[in-house]
């Protein structure tokens, strides 16, 4: 064979599957032999390394296991019942459940024999032992009763088991003196006549329809008119809606605007502004805005202007505190400033001038800004 072996033929020679002519060529041709050697040598190394490794592992491995088998091979065998596959066990169990194998009739080959008593450790004194047991139990119980009836023991027990009336205050919900939100409402339909006297509509937390003196007759969606006010708002008995504080007269919705009854604005009743009743604003009853508390948060000052000192007060070295009451409206602007405690000498006026320029974060009720009454102390101090 003149040409060299292909890579497949070389593999065949290595495997031992080459035909005789190829193997002869492999022996004779130096180039092919070298080619085979490049593969055969690493494989031989591989073989040696595996042999060596295996021998070492065998030496390092579990010597007891090796010797155990050689001495007693049968001991290591698993019983036939355990050697079955798990599914064959299940199948066998199902088969037995469906077709129970017919077992041969059970023949009793044993006979009862006389055995010593099981409770033999009383040694034949069961009766006395039972009696003693009852006696001991009775004695213990009697002792407990006797002890319970003795005065010092009773005293002792009473002393230790002092009942404490627990202070439930931390657990009880705090009853706060909830100031009712004050406010007012007003309305009207720009009628030339003043609002007529009548009953107030029902009180509801939200207003859908403002009250009217002359309710529409064939409303498509009849809805009870309501105002937003506390439930104890004073009312009168009347057939039609109106302002309870007004005079009797021709039924009129009043000179106000925005629906409702009265001279004010908005859907309420009265001279105020909003959905309530009365002279105030923002719903509720009575006069004025909401008061802080009862779900109404306090307004906070955003921008402050320091008041100036009046000339007279400076000359007189006059100092003190002016208390102002004001309504912070929905937009945070001070309204209706009133002097609650005057100081005189023009300082009240200066305080009002300053506070009028303040801006507030409005008080909130149910997440919405509402007008809130607030009190502000303005201090005048000479340095």
């Amino acid at each position, binding site marked *: 064979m003149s040409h060299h072996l292909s890579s497949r033929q070389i593999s065949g020679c290595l495997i*031992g599957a080459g035909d005789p002519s190829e193997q002869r060529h492999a022996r004779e041709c130096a180039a092919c032999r070298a080619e085979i050697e490049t593969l055969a040598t*690493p*494989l*031989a*190394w*591989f073989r*040696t390394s595996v042999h060596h490794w*295996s021998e070492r592992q065998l030496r390092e491995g579990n010597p007891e296991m090796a010797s155990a088998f*050689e001495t007693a091979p049968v001991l290591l065998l698993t019983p036939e019942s355990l050697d079955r596959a798990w599914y064959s066990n299940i199948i066998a169990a199902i088969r037995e459940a469906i077709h129970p194998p017919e077992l041969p009739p059970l023949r009793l080959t044993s006979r009862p024999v006389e055995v010593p008593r099981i409770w033999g450790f009383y040694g034949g004194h069961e009766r006395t032992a039972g009696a003693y047991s009852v006696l001991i139990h009775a004695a213990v119980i009697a002792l407990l009763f006797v002890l319970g009836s003795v005065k010092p023991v009773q005293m002792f027990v009473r002393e230790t088991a002092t009942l404490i009336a627990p202070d439930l205050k931390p657990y009880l919900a705090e009853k706060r003196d909830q100031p009712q939100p004050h406010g007012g409402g007003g309305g009207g339909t720009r009628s030339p006549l003043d609002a007529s006297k009548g009953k107030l509509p029902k009180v509801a937390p939200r207003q859908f329809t403002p009250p009217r003196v002359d309710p529409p007759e064939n409303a498509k969606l009849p809805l009870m008119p309501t105002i937003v006010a506390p439930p104890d708002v004073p009312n009168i008995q009347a057939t039609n809606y109106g302002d309870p504080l007004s005079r009797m007269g021709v039924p009129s919705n009043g000179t106000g605007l925005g629906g409702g009854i009265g001279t004010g604005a908005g859907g309420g009743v009265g001279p105020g502004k909003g959905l309530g009743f009365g002279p105030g604003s923002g719903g509720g009853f009575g006069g004025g805005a909401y008061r802080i508390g009862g779900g109404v948060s306090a307004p906070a000052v955003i921008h402050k202007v320091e008041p100036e000192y009046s000339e007279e007060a400076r000359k007189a070295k006059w100092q003190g505190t002016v208390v102002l009451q004001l309504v912070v409206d929905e937009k945070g602007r001070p309204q209706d400033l009133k002097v609650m405690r005057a100081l005189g000498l023009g300082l009240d006026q200066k305080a009002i001038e300053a506070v009028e320029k303040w801006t507030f974060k409005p008080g909130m009720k149910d997440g919405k800004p509402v007008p809130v009454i607030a009190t502000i102390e303005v201090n005048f101090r000479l340095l």
Partner: protein
Amino acid sequence: MERALSSEVTPVTVGSGGPLDNFEALVEQHRPRIFRFILASLRNQESAENLTQDCFVRAYQARDQFRGASSAGTWLMQIAANLVRSHEASGRLKFWRRTLRPDVDLSDAGDWIPDRQMSPEQMAAAKQQVEEIWKAAGRLSGKQRTVFLLRFVEDMELLEIAAVTGMKEGTVKTHLFRALKAVRAALERNMK
């Protein structure tokens, strides 16, 4: 290539009572070989020990069925090959087994090289080549690896391998060709 048949392959002497009368001698004779094959296949000493033990247990249980058609070594190797195959099949599910004991380090397996007047460079190259063969053998499919190990580690003839694996000789050859091709490719990659 010179290949001497090792003494381990010689069939066990047939006793007077039965073919596998002297079971202890059989175990002693074949244990290193079976262990080596399983260890090379699984690369886990613990599993190899267990499977070797299993192999002899099965052989002991089935010793009545051994008719002497092949040598006892071939028969035992057949059992071992079957065990390795079923272990690999179950091992795919029982992945946590790997965590029990880390597989043998390849560098650990290739740390011995016949140092026949080899320079350190040659030693290192040889080591690297052996490692490459290890890795390549690890990448082979189950059948190819079995055939490869039987041929090049256990030095078995093609017919013997066919008897062990239960495949036809032609199939064994095909598997060997493919395995060798992969190993060659790995070695050539290493050389470059």
